[in-house]
């Protein structure tokens, strides 16, 4: 395989993560230049053009929510286009990612990916022979790899903690593959394939069929990535390509260990519950959770604080009661089912989380305790709902389950919130964030240190080789060196603006006012007749028999005071000059932390040349 211009794993990882920031084309260009410089130590001497998916007009791309950037690079020897597909619009949120490809049927995103590549080629004037390389994280990789295998969109695919391709989808997308599957398994349609061929067999065949293409797929995956951990549980999901597995969180035993022996349907229920919770929590904090979870208009329950008030609400607000019952009928049973599945497997799920180091014993106990509480109340509500549907109004009121039902409704309103707060306070959800973090590119990067170079976020970090092992964010240092100079220039402009403002707003304006007064004096002195009202005003009455003769103004003008900002302006200008020196001094200080062979000095020099 020919080496690409940006064909460095770490560049791909850093730029793919940076792409989530939706930078302007110019900013992205300089980011590419800087990352290239940091990774290779040399300047990228190439023509770079950028096309972002939001720049396309009228097409499926925007409508499907596809988000990506095409980067065209021509270094004189070769032309290439890199396409970064974003995982999801809301960033590296694994739970939503997990839902798409795992449920696995929609192909509009791979289609949008292909269409975007086509439009980018046109817009950027990319040669037909130019290599098109895709980078993608999470769902972005899934879309890229499916577009590659289904449509031949790319020449190469590089994925990071990617969601894998789905063989059943590829069967519908790639007719060549479809023919081969039909031939091999003697199936004649989708249902046939699902029913008569085991997913394992199909997966093996898929790997074999795409053997050549697999050479062009490269993946790096964290052994702690939750998405990757779920791949084996989804029928038809196939890991294709050359895969490098990295342990990014050595404190825990890895996601496969965590999920081992837990039945897939249980994992799915846990995942669903987490999703439901995440969605409700996103909507506006714990208070909103109840509303979101149950679809109940909490305003109706405003005055329901006791069984007595429940009965009066039931009696006098039948409409609200019916609406509430309807909402609960819809929301409670499926939620309860999931909570029960999780509780039935509580030792397995929470026990395993604890054993593998993700959560503490206390977190485990709190979670089980609160979930059991939730389960008992939801059960009561379910019983009440069943009673309500089978009993007449009067019977319902007399039935014993109604008392409990009312009690549990009151509980939904008040105590569910505190139950969820308890779970939150236990730290459980934060602990689970450790799992989520393992899906991120920065955690992959953090595991990629080499010599005295390592990563922090998407930045490169050098550990000092001269003296104390101080960690220096070299990316930030270069950005400082490169981007603070324009800030100082801006500051100079603003100082000039201030000087101008002082002149206009104070000095000139004072002169203006003075002139206006002088003009008025002139008018008074030259035409006293027009100022007869002065007579009355100053008590010389009656005025009708008096004739104005002269007016003399004894004017006194003082020079404006407190308008001298010279000293301050001088100080401000001085701070710009010393700022420039300070930048150089900082550069020197950093250089001194390193040996000459670290070439830090050259990085600084080059950083101002793009």
């Amino acid at each position, binding site marked *: 395989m020919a080496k690409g211009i940006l064909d460095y794993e770490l560049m791909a990882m850093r730029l793919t993560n940076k792409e989530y920031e939706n930078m302007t084309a110019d900013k992205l260009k300089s980011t590419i230049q800087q990352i290239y410089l940091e990774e290779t130590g040399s300047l990228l001497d190439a023509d770079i053009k950028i096309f972002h998916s939001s720049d396309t007009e009228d097409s499926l791309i925007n*409508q499907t929510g596809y988000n990506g950037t095409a980067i065209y690079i021509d270094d004189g020897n070769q032309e290439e286009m890199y396409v970064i597909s974003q995982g999801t619009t809301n960033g590296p949120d694994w739970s939503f990612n997990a839902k798409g490809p795992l449920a696995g049927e929609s*192909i*509009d995103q791979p289609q949008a990916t292909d*269409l975007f590549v086509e439009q980018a080629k046109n817009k950027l004037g990319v040669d037909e022979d130019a290599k098109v390389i895709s980078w993608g994280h999470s769902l972005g990789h899934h879309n890229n790899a499916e577009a590659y295998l289904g449509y031949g969109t790319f020449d190469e695919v590089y994925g990071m903690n990617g969601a894998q391709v789905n063989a059943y989808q590829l069967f*519908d997308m790639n*007719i060549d593959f479809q023919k081969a599957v039909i031939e091999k398994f003697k199936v*004649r349609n989708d*249902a046939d394939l699902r029913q008569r061929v085991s997913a394992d067999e199909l997966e093996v065949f898929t790997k074999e069929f795409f053997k050549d293409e697999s050479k062009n797929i490269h993946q790096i995956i964290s052994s702690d990535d939750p998405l990757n951990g779920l791949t084996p549980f989804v029928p038809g999901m196939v890991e294709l390509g050359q895969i490098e597995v990295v342990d990014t969180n050595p404190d825990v035993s890895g996601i496969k260990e965590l999920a081992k022996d837990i039945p897939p349907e249980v994992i799915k229920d846990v995942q669903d519950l987490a999703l439901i919770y995440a969605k409700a929590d996103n909507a506006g904090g714990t208070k909103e959770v109840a509303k979101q979870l149950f679809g109940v208009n909490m305003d109706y329950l405003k005055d329901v604080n006791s069984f007595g008030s429940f009965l009066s609400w039931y009696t006098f607000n039948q409409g609200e009661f019916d609406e509430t019952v309807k909402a609960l009928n819809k929301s409670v049973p499926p939620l309860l089912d999931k909570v029960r599945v999780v509780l039935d497997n509580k030792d397995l799920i929470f026990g395993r989380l604890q054993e593998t180091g993700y959560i503490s014993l206390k977190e485990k106990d709190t979670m089980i305790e609160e979930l059991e509480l939730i389960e008992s109340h939801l059960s009561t509500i379910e019983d009440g709902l069943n009673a309500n549907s089978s009993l007449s109004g009067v019977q319902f009121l007399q039935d014993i389950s109604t008392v409990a039902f009312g009690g549990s409704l009151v509980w939904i309103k008040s105590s569910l919130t505190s139950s969820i707060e308890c779970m939150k306070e236990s730290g459980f959800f934060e602990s689970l964030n450790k799992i989520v973090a393992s899906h991120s590119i920065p955690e992959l990067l953090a595991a990629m240190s080499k010599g005295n170079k390592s990563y922090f976020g998407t930045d490169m970090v050098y550990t000092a080789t001269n003296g104390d092992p101080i960690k220096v964010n070299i990316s930030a240092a270069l950005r400082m060196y490169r981007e603070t100079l324009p800030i100082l220039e801006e500051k100079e402009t603003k100082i000039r603006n201030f000087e101008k403002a002082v002149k206009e707003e104070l000095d000139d304006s004072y002169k203006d006012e003075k002139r206006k007064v002088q003009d008025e004096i002139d008018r008074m002195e030259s035409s006293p007749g027009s100022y007869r009202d002065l007579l009355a005003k100053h008590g010389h009455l009656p005025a009708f028999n008096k004739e104005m003769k002269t007016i003399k103004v004894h004017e006194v003008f003082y020079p404006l005071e407190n308008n001298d900002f010279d000293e301050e302006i001088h100080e401000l200008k001085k701070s710009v000059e010393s700022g420039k020196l300070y930048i150089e001094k900082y550069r020197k200080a950093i250089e001194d932390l390193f040996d000459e062979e670290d070439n830090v000095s050259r990085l600084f020099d080059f950083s101002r040349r793009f």
Partner: protein
Amino acid sequence: MSNGKESLSPSEMDPKDLPDVPAFQDELTRDYLESTESVREGYYTLVSATNTFTLDFPEDMVVDETSMAGNEGNSESLIFYYDDNDADVMDQFIINYYSSIPNIEYSRDLMNRRAGEELDFKKVPSENENQHLEIAEMDSDDSTSYIAAIVRNEKKQEIQVFTSIICREDIENNQCDSLKEEEKEKVSDVLKSIQFNNDKGK
């Protein structure tokens, strides 16, 4: 059929009152069908999940469970085939609807890439106003034939179709050929019946 409840859609009706054919007896397929009144002998109107197009649906076919509407109704995949797995010939329609595809050249190229061969699309006169239909027959082997089609309108809405026609394994080549020819006619009729719903939302 007359059960006195003309206004009910098939999915709201008692299955006992529905025509005794796979299209109506299959719960998922029933949801797609507009009414129990046939458009022509053996065909009923199917309304897509995004309500963006209709077609004449053969009564002995069923919709695959993976069919779905995409993000905000901007795309849809619709897959259907004969319910009888042992039918002499099996047709499977894989239909993809997209709300906006910039130009047809792109679509042809995409279809070529999916097919793995140059498709020779031929324009087919469309009875539906402002609609363009083109069909290509793919290279076939003894037991299998493929038909590709693109339906498109001026609003750049587009439908891409791949249809496979596959004889049962034990069927002789000669017989298979004539069976496939027959099926091609049927497939072509279904493709011609595809119509964009310009009053989307009604």
